[in-house]
């Protein structure tokens, strides 16, 4: 790599000022799993690399004490520089957001997950980003700090295009906020690669389901679904038509139809990894499988408790 300066600012304002300086003269650095590869190839040649990991809160996972007003339950705030392993191992994440646990554990290898960060995964903004479909399903918010102070961006607005985020000059991602989990939430993340494990996604699908009661006294529950697709568009995508169809009909035929709608919602391209036609059909297959697994888990957990214990789900390192 060509020489550069390394700076580890201690406060947000300093970091922002450093990143705002010059024409891409400074690069944000957290896990480095994408950045260092680009530095080594000479694709980018910044004058300085700004290590954000030491900034207050960036490596913490905590319940928010400043949730949106009128929210009865706290959000979970995950510092942007938290590693995949850190996120996947945290008791609150495991208890309430197992879909995100699965997603984090799908990244590369254990040792890479000791460096790759959830914030870096979002800022790199690959359409194949492993955590993105889960974050879309969970309605995550990206918290950003910049010259104008802090702001929050819905995750679906944070991803703007391949490799492009909503970050403005001098801004950096500080945290991912997850709303409190709804009752009976169950999520399944499926990923297809060229090797069984550890690959970049050719296609990924997150399916998420929960119960909503119109009011506390009502017996009837409404089943809500989220289906998010990765690696089949310029950004991760929600398959909203599929979600609505599934909410109306989650029988075998309904599942099949929802999977087809999800495939129709995908916008894949041909590239050196796979063709668009294959990807589209794999969306159908992975979506169907994800829905089937969710339904199976829901049936299992319904038998245990109406509130819906979190069933143990696949995905987890040793």
């Amino acid at each position, binding site marked *: 790599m060509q020489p550069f300066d390394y700076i580890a600012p201690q406060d947000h304002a300093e970091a922002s000022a450093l990143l705002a300086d010059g024409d891409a003269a400074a690069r944000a650095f957290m896990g480095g799993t994408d950045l260092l590869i680009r530095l080594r190839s000479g694709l980018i040649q910044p004058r300085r690399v700004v*290590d954000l990991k030491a900034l207050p809160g960036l490596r913490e996972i905590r319940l928010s004490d400043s949730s949106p007003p009128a929210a009865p339950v706290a959000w979970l705030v995950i510092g942007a520089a938290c590693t995949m392993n850190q996120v996947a191992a945290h008791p609150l994440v495991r208890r309430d957001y197992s879909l995100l646990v699965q997603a984090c554990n799908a990244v590369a290898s254990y*040792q890479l997950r000791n*460096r790759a960060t959830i914030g870096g995964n979002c800022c790199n903004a690959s359409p194949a980003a492993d955590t993105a479909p889960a974050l879309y399903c969970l309605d995550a918010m990206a918290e950003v700090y910049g010259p104008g102070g802090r702001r929050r961006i819905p995750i679906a607005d944070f991803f703007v295009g391949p490799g492009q985020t909503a970050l403005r000059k001098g801004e950096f991602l500080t945290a991912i906020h997850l709303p409190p989990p709804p009752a009976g939430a169950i999520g399944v993340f499926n990923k297809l690669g060229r090797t069984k494990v550890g690959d970049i996604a050719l296609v990924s699908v997150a399916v998420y389901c929960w119960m909503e009661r119109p009011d506390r006294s009502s017996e009837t529950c409404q089943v809500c679904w989220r289906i998010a697709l990765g690696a089949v568009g310029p950004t991760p995508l929600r398959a909203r038509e599929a979600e609505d169809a599934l909410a109306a009909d989650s029988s075998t035929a309904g599942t099949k139809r929802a999977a087809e709608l999800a495939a129709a919602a995908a916008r894949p391209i041909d590239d050196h990894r796979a063709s668009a036609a294959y990807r589209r059909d794999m969306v159908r297959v992975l979506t169907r499988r994800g829905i089937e697994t969710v339904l199976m888990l829901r049936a299992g957990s319904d038998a245990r408790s109406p509130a819906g214990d979190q069933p143990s789900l696949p995905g987890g390192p040793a």
Partner: protein
Amino acid sequence: MSNTISFTVNGELYTIPVASHHTLLQVLREQLTLTGVKNGCEAGECGACVVLVDGEPVNSCLVLAPEVDGAAIITVEGLAHDDQLDPLQEAFIAAGATQCGFCTPGILINARALLNRNPDPTETQIREALVGNLCRCTGYIRIIDAIKIAAQAGKEAAR
């Protein structure tokens, strides 16, 4: 830009100047001549450069030198104690798990970390723990065997 950092490697304290743009891999191999750590791709994909940083395995090719200020690092040279090989090292020899040997240091470190956090892994857990360590010679079969042997030896020692 040069930064002076202090860190331990295999229990030895070092206080040395490092370049900002050098990786931990370069520091270990070139400044400390710990050449047991190997360079296979410099992209975090092959695992030949894996070392323990504060007990956790990382690809040293993706860690910038200034980051390890204050850290405790273990490389393959630090697995044996005096002349006593780590049970994993013994098992690798016994099971024939080493051929060209280039992937071996990274795998030993990763396997040591695995057994530290999970002393009795299943075969699936072993395979998944090693998915980021590429081997072209052995087909992984003896490597998996060796880790099982070492895990078993560890369980027996604990009794």
